[in-house]
C-alpha cells in the first residue's frame, strides 16, 4: 500500500498543474522526490502578514494520506501558533483532526486561515500568545508586521 501515497501525490500534482493557478498558494514537489514539497503562501490581506510571501516545507510520509504531512514554516513568522525558531505549526488539522479529505493544497489554505485567525490557547510562540491572550492586538500586529517587512519576501520566487 505504500505505493498509494505516491499515487495520491501524483494526482495532487497533476491537479495543481492543470488547474488555474491559486492566487495565494504556489507549490511543487522536489523533482527527484515526490514526498518533498515546497510551498509559498501569500500573507492574507488585512493581516500583519499582508504583502509577505512565506515559504513552507512539506514532508510527506509513506502512510499519507492516512496520516498528515509534516508542514513547517521556512520563513520566520511571528504568530502565536508558529514556533519562531523551528517553524513548527500548531494546527489541529495537521495533528489530531487530520483526515485524508485534506490535500496538501487544502492544508496550505488552512495555514492561511490560521495566519488570519491566531489562536491564543496553547501557543508555540509565547510572546505572541501573551499579546493575543491579553487582547493587545495592536502590539501583536505591530510586531508581526515588523517581522513581516523584515523577513518575508515581497515577491513570489522566480523559479515558481
Amino acid at each position: 500500500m505504500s505505493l498509494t501515497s505516491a499515487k495520491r501525490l501524483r494526482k495532487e500534482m497533476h491537479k495543481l498543474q492543470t488547474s488555474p493557478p491559486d492566487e495565494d498558494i504556489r507549490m511543487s514537489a522536489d523533482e527527484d522526490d515526490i514526498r518533498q514539497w515546497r510551498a509559498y503562501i501569500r500573507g492574507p490581506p488585512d493581516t500583519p502578514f499582508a504583502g509577505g510571501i512565506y515559504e513552507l516545507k512539506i514532508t510527506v510520509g509513506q502512510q499519507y494520506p492516512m496520516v498528515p504531512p509534516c508542514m513547517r514554516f521556512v520563513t520566520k513568522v511571528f504568530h502565536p501558533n508558529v514556533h519562531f525558531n523551528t517553524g513548527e505549526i500548531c494546527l489541529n488539522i495537521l495533528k489530531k483532526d487530520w483526515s485524508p479529505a485534506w490535500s496538501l493544497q487544502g492544508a496550505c489554505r488552512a495555514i492561511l486561515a490560521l495566519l488570519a485567525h491566531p489562536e491564543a490557547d496553547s501557543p508555540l510562540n509565547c510572546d505572541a500568545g501573551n499579546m493575543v491572550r491579553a487582547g493587545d492586538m495592536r502590539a501583536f500586529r505591530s510586531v508581526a508586521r515588523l517581522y513581516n517587512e523584515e523577513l518575508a519576501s515581497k515577491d513570489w520566487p522566480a523559479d515558481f
Partner: protein
Amino acid sequence: MSEEKDTTAPPTAADAASSTGEAAAADSSVDLAKQNEQTVEQQNAINATIKATQPKVGAKEEVDALLPEYEGNPKPGFRKGVQDLGKRYSALRRVRGDGNCFYRSFLFGYLERLLQGIKSVGDANTKAMLELSRLRQVVHDSKAALIALGYEEVALDDFWQTFLQELDALPNMEMGQLEINFREEAGPCEYIVWYCRMLTSGFLKLNADRFLPFLEHTVDMQDFCQREVEPMGKECEQIQIMGLCEHLNTPVKIEYLDGQDFSGQLGSITLPDTGAEAMVTLLYRPGHYDVLYPMTNQ
C-alpha cells in the same frame, strides 16, 4: 481551530519528533509544546499496545467469553446481559478499540453477511446479489455528491475506487478472505473504513437541519464533521450511526450492554427504525462496538 491539548488521534512519529522545543529555554510555550509531545507519546504508546494485542477484526468466539470480564463487577446488569445475549446470539467477533470500531464492525458485519448470502443458493443468493448491487450503486453515486458538497476529487478518488473494487471482488471471495483483508494493518480495508466516514459526513451535511438539533456543542455541521467524523480514530455517537446507516439504507441493530439492570431482554435499538430487518447486529459496551451473530444467521 480549537486547542491542541487533547490529543486523541494518533499523529505520526514524525509529528512527535518534530516538537523539539529547543532554544527558548524556560518558555511556557515550550513547556506546553513538551506537554503536547508527551501526550502524543503516551497516546502513541497506548495505540502501539492496542495494535500489538488486538487484531483489527478478531476471530468468532462464544458470547460467554465475555463473562470473565465482568467477574465481580458491581453492576449485575453486565453478567445478566451476557447471559441473555448467549441465548440469542451464537457468536461474537471482537473488533479493535481504536476509535474506528463502529465503522469497522458495521462494515465487516455487513460485507460478511453479504458474502454469506452470495455463497448460498436460491433465494438467499439472489437477495444478496441484489443487495450488493444496490450497495455498489449507493457507493458509486456518493463521490459526485461529496464533490458537490465541496470535497476535492483527488482526496476521495483512491478511497472510492478501493471501495468499489472490494465490492466487485466480493462475489469471488472465499469466506476467510474478508477476515484476512480486514486484518491487514495498512490494507485496502482501512481505505474503505475511512470512506464510510465520508459517507457519514456527506449525509449529515445534506441533512444538517435535521441532525443539528442533536448536537450539543456546535451549530456548524461542517465544523462537526471536520472534527468528529472525518478524522480516523474519532469515536462515534448515535448521530454518526444514523448518518451512515441512513445513507446506505442499511439498518443496524445495536444491543446495549451497559450494566443497567433490565427485565426480559437486554435493551436494543435498530437504526434507522423503519421496521426493516437489520443487516448487521452490533454489541455496544460503553465506548466500544463488536459484531454479534444471531442464532438464526447460522
